[in-house]
């Protein structure tokens, strides 16, 4: 195996002969490059990175527990996690580069340029995701604990990492979305940091239904639900729709849930209560809906 000095003498014999003073100037820098990555420094760097990883996991776990135990500050605490992750990794990298390896500025520039070119070609997507992660953390279109919809997936944000963002869908699937995709797509955020969010329950009724009675039943169903958040208004609206040449009344009950975790429970309870009551009052259709005239 050739060492750096041999490589230099074999690769550049002409220049070495023509200008031997240049070789003498370069030599000490190459020796320092060897020292730069001595076994001791590599082991120290690995230990620092492992410690940073473990500390990161521990802090994430601790804040997660704290958030679950302090219900009213849940979202606030969870939002701190991505910031702390980035801060912790930045400190760890600073310690490794500035404290342990401690390279001269020229080396940093050279290595940086080389990595820049290599990574620029080979790891474009990873870099895009990492920059996307920074943009998400700084721009905050959503935060941990929010309910978002992106790319056809709807769920609660459980983590914002440097490469990807994770959301848990209502059917308890964990979806990992690359940050670059999030930055390049539009994101719908249901609660933007608040514990409550709006829930819309839909009921389809024939056009000849008694609208006033149905609206009253729908309103009372919404305010009776244990999950409803009454500091924000409950609204019942109707829309006329034509589906398969049939006139249909689309009843929408818009209410806020007191905790986003009960979102689907509220939606389900409002729907059940309305349908049960309309059935009890025999207001639900047993006939074919009215057809639109040809």
């Amino acid at each position, binding site marked *: 195996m050739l060492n750096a000095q041999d490589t230099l003498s074999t690769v550049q014999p002409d220049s070495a002969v023509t200008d031997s003073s240049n070789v003498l100037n370069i030599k000490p820098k190459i020796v320092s490059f060897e020292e730069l990555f001595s076994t001791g420094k590599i082991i120290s760097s690995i230990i620092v990175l492992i410690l940073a990883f473990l500390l990161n996991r521990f802090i994430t776990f*601790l804040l997660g*527990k704290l958030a679950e*135990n302090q219900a*009213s500050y849940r979202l606030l605490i969870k939002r701190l996690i991505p910031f702390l992750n980035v801060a912790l990794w930045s400190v760890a990298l600073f310690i490794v580069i500035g404290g342990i390896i401690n390279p001269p500025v020229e080396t940093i520039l050279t290595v940086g340029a080389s990595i820049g070119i290599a990574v620029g070609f080979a790891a474009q997507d990873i870099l895009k995701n990492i920059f996307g992660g920074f943009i998400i953390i700084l721009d905050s279109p959503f935060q941990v604990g929010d309910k978002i919809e992106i790319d056809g997936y709807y769920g609660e944000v459980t983590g914002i990492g440097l490469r990807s963002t994770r959301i848990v869908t209502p059917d308890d699937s964990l979806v990992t979305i690359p940050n670059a995709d999030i930055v390049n797509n539009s994101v719908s955020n249901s609660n933007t940091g608040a514990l409550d969010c709006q829930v819309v329950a839909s009921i389809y009724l024939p056009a000849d239904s008694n609208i006033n009675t149905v609206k009253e039943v729908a309103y*009372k169903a919404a*305010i*009776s639900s244990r999950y409803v*958040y*009454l500091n924000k208004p409950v609204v019942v609206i109707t829309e006329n729709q034509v589906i398969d040449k049939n006139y249909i009344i689309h009843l929408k009950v818009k209410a806020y849930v007191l905790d986003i975790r009960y979102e689907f429970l509220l939606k389900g309870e409002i729907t*059940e209560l309305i349908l049960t009551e309309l059935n009890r009052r025999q207001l639900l259709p047993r006939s074919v809906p009215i057809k639109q005239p040809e």
Partner: protein
Amino acid sequence: MRFASRKLRQIIIPIQTIFGFKIINNQSAQKIVGLSTFLTETDQKIQELPKSYRELFDLNKQVDQELYVNASDNIRGVGKAYEAWKQGFPSSVALIGEKGSGKSTLSHLLKEEYFKDEKVINIEIKQSTWKIEQILSLLGSSFEITDVNRPETIVNAINARDEKVIVNLEGLQKLYLRNINGFDALDALWLIISETKEKVFWMATCSRYAWEFLNKIEGIETHFTHVFLTDALSEANITSVILNRHNKSVYKLNFEADESTRRSRNYKKRLNDPKAVQEYLKEIYFERLADITEGNTSVATILWLRSIKKVERRTITISPFQPVNIETLEILKPETLFTLAAIVLHDTLKVAELCRVLNLTLAQSRVLLSRLKSRGVLIEEESGYYLNQLVYRQVLRLLKRRNIIH
């Protein structure tokens, strides 16, 4: 070494509690049992006190003006509303406050002071009355009206009378059930109140959280021209509520210090003067009592009686004030919290009523209520289950923290 370990434990235990790492071990389980026993044996402990002293703090006994702490000058406020009604202004009054905050006491004193020469119809709603037939029948019997098929017939009958009358309606919170069909009685009552304001001076009491709930869903305060709060007592008011009663007894007070107070510099520097020590301990006790009761008279009274450690000759010893920590009672599951919220909104609930409110089966409701009863959080009486006053404030704080009541 032992000192260091004890110090470390003192620091670690609160941190564990904050982060939710505290594991229910045998010792904690025993603590829960001890706490539940403490909560359930309140009546028995109070019964052990001297009868004369007990009667001074009897919450069911009507108090006279001398013992009543008239915060915010509510009596005068209602009096003004009444004078305006007599002059033709259609006034109606609502007295709002937490359970046990003195709404009934205030209405009783008003009857004694302002309405003693007037005809007063007292309607006390003791059980859930949420069906329209129930409220019409109740009003019919109170006004001696036979035709009570519809609200309009009652309105016509009242307006056809020559005499004006005062109606003292106690317990609006029992006139609804948080259920899709549970608001019919209230709807009928609003119609009757709005149509008879000139003939009837309506004075209604309602518990605070039911009032706030009804206000959000249908704007209950629009039906009343004057609203008075009975649960806004200050620390000085709460101290007066207790000491006014105590001073009628023959007993002297002796306050005990807890561990942290004994260690404090303020306590140590008074040690040479026993009188100053007692004054200091008394001040600390009432400061903590006012903080936990937040202006609720009956909660303060129960806590005071429960703080009595012993009665010897003419001296009552008051143990250091230690509010019950309900977080150790394992009541933090969502269904339990929703049950507690339902009870706060209705004051009292029976098993069948809880079924309707939370859309549960009878068996589920029974299990939920009896579990809370066995923990000492709820008390069961003929009228239904209601919150133990010893944990009233803690439950409210917990439900507010969880965004369930506001």
